[in-house]
């Protein structure tokens, strides 16, 4: 398959993830949608690595994997802290920092 097919799939997944971040209210699902966007970026990186025949893009994808794992850890810790304080697990009602 040509490389541009992979890039189109990557763009599609990225857009679905971005739409999920806009539409959903549950912070857990918003984290999942962020994962989708990071995975789309990973797919594009690996497709370009294949196009150039250079494995640097795969290293970049691995680092993105690590960053995504960190984001998941901190995000889930935040959600557990929200739940412990019996605040609503809903991003529309958590607007104290908005001023």
């Amino acid at each position: 398959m040509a490389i541009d097919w992979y890039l189109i799939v990557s763009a599609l997944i990225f857009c679905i993830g971005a739409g999920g971040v806009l539409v959903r209210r549950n912070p857990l699902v918003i984290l999942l949608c962020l994962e989708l966007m990071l995975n789309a970026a990973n797919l594009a990186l690996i497709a370009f690595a294949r196009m150039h025949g250079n494995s640097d893009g795969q290293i970049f994808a691995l680092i993105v994997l690590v960053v995504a794992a960190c984001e998941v850890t901190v995000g889930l810790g935040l959600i557990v802290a929200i739940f412990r304080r019996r605040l609503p697990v809903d991003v529309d009602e958590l607007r104290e920092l908005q001023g």
Partner: protein
Amino acid sequence: MSAVIFFIAAIGAVAGAIGVVALRNPFYSVLALVGHLLSLAALFLLLRAEFVAAAQVVVYAGAVMVLYLFVVSYIGGGARPLTPGGSSLRAVAGFAMLALFVELAIAVLGSSLKAVSGDGAPFVPGFGTPEQIGEALLTKFLFPFEVASLLLLVAAVGAVVLARRRGGTTLEDEIRDSAHWITPRSLFSGTMAEAVGAVRPPHEHGDPGTAATDENELGRPVVTPAGREEQGGW
């Protein structure tokens, strides 16, 4: 053959992504993301990224998703309505999504890169194997590798700090507010929390006649159960 595998995996990946966004129960969203990640690993294999595909399946679809499932079952994610403001916000979000996709498609297909529509560089044996990845990580990309390990350490410490029991919610508050769903039995009927002294029946410290005077004769302040519990939790 590779085209067939590509289309199956691509449809699986896109369907998994749509499932993450569209399913109401967060539990099913996580399961859809697992399917999405497995399809994406197949795409990575087609692009000859063997090690990244294996890492994706083991680390992502295995470990990270289990962490998600733990948190979903901890906070008990029930089905919630999808949109706060009815269909108007959904329409705006859909329009933004579509605009973004058109823009990205124009950027990809209209780029002046000729190789984009080709099959890529000729395959070199050893491309994407763990051997090559490991060598690159420990020679050319040593600094990003170390920074990534430091980032993981910081994230682990941050998660422990964030999710620990706070000073703001004392144990007594939690027991009082959550007793109706933590303990199936009513309080002060011989529960385990009583056995370890975490909760006391009201008559033990509610009688000021006998207990309070004993301690006041010794010249000490009356120790209330609330004060005792703030010093030592579970």
